[in-house]
């Protein structure tokens, strides 16, 4: 019964997602009417001809749309990486940055800002962010691997240890930072989507597509890994190789996101749980639905972040927590009630 409903649910949420893109782009400092927004987008497609306002076009196509798309991609990526980490570690508390990727990425960005590299080129922050994430992944992975075998528990513990060590390094640098740098660093650390343009979209799109194809091709293995390592081996899964591939692709994708937007918490932790409570734990459905769920969630969170104290903005991390936590608790209560009825 559940499987019959799946495509419908998936298509419905995709339409909802398209709708949210239009809503998210039409609101902002200047509110552009809904239908004009739709017209501007449609005019870009073949077979549609509309007279559109060129100011609106500028705002929509070069300021708001890239930002909304970055928000969607980052939200989708973090949600899927959260799914992968929770299943790999068989731990509901796992999130994309669990093995220290987020802290590593943050430290990279903080270094770039502290040494003034961000003034030379804005690209230095994401590049250093990504390098930080990558080096952390390597370090944690090498420490936890011996004789070609990686212990998941060691990986988790090493991740936590390295993560707090790296955070301490960031804090130390912040202590020495000047006031101007401090503001920039804090902005970066709390995660922000301000001033995203099409270049950011170009940077994101390739790793996003590649990592997701890779992750989706392992959907059956992810299901089985939830039964435990021995069961996975018993069913003929090359456990070490599968885990390594999944861990690296999820970590790299997270690293790319963190390096561009800073650490946006909560999405990767909570969206997978929400989707799991709605449609069940099978990865074949969980992965695509989490993609859309994460995109939708972060797009809406970003919209709210832009609107509440217009023309200023609230940090998006605040919104994701404010939105996510109550809805999550609602879903947990609903689940409890349903189990009581069984």
């Amino acid at each position, binding site marked *: 019964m559940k499987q019959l409903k799946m495509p419908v649910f998936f298509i419905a949420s995709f339409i909802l997602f398209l709708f949210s893109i239009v809503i998210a782009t039409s609101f902002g400092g200047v509110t552009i009417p809904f239908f004009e927004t739709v017209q501007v987008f449609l005019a870009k497609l073949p077979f549609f001809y509309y007279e559109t306002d060129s100011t609106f076009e500028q705002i929509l196509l070069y300021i708001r749309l890239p930002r909304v798309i970055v928000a969607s991609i980052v939200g989708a990526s973090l949600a899927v990486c959260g799914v992968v980490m929770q299943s790999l570690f068989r731990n509901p508390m796992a999130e994309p940055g669990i093995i220290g990727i987020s802290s590593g990425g943050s430290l990279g960005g903080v270094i770039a800002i502290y040494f003034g590299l961000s003034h030379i080129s804005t690209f230095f922050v994401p590049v250093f962010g990504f390098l930080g994430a990558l080096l952390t992944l390597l370090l944690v992975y090498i420490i936890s691997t011996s004789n070609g075998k990686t212990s998941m528990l060691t990986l988790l513990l090493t991740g936590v240890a390295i993560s707090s060590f790296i955070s301490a390094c960031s804090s130390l640098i912040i202590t020495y930072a000047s006031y101007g740098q401090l503001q920039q660093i804090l902005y970066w650390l709390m995660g922000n989507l301000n001033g995203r343009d099409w270049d950011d979209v170009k940077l994101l799109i390739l790793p996003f597509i590649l990592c997701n194809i890779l992750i989706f091709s392992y959907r*059956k293995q992810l*299901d089985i890994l939830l*039964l435990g390592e*021995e069961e996975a081996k018993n*069913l*003929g899964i090359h456990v070490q190789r599968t885990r390594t591939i999944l861990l690296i692709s999820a970590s790299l994708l997270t690293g790319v996101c963190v390096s561009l937007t800073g650490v946006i918490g909560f999405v990767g932790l909570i969206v997978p749980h929400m989707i799991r409570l709605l449609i069940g734990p099978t990865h074949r459905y969980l992965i695509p639905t989490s993609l859309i769920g994460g995109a939708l969630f972060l797009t809406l969170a970003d919209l709210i972040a832009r609107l509440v104290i217009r023309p200023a903005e609230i940090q998006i991390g605040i919104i994701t927590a404010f939105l996510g936590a109550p809805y999550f608790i609602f879903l947990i209560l609903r689940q409890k009630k349903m*189990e009581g009825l069984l």
Partner: protein
Amino acid sequence: MNEAALEIQSLTFHRNARTIFNNLSFTVEKGKFIALIGPNGTGKSTLLKCLAGINRIDSGDIKIFNRSLRQLKPLEIAKRITYMPQTTTLETNFTVQQVVEMGRYPHKKRFSRWMKTDQLAVKKALEQVGISHLKHRFVPSLSGGERQLVYLAKAIAQETDILLLDEPTSDLDIYYQVIVTDILHSLVQEGKTVIAAIHDINLATRICDQCIFLKDGKFVAYNAPSDALNTENIAKTFQVKSIIYQEPLTKKKQMMPVDVLT
């Protein structure tokens, strides 16, 4: 003698510098039901996991139908042999059906579709174990005994020639003990080879074709139950003084523990 399903040649296995098995060799005939009997911590589960390729052995060789385990890829092993654990740790809300379907994994290619044969195998396994009525229930919400049945159904859906079962009856009441015993017998009838670790010595010797008494990684006996079940073997394996008598109705040997040997 029948074809050998499993041929174990000087198997050696260490765990944390402790030797569990040293130069253990034996053969298991195809189509036999072997009961593995021994005290706690003597290596029953470890032996089953070595045979299933879950534990990597340090030296020696295991051959499944004349193919060495070392030369087979994990998926090829999984098509030939399956291991059912004694306890399971699943906290994710998969339904019974979804878990049994995972048993089909070794038979699928990465992007191959779910086939009629898979569906039939799953349906048959659920029916054979008698848990079709549970198929939409969440596995974590089931009792320990029901969960054991789910994993047994998964092992059956895997359609392997050899089944290794770790205490398949330990959490079951006598109703399901009889059911599972019947299932195992019918699997053997189909030509499959079953090795099961069973705690209850009387149950084990009553239902198996041959039994292994295992003590500290060594075989005390590997015989037909009528020959293997004697006070001497019980004493050697369990350090227990026992009485062996013939049960008047079934004419089968029964064992009653009397005292511990010091």
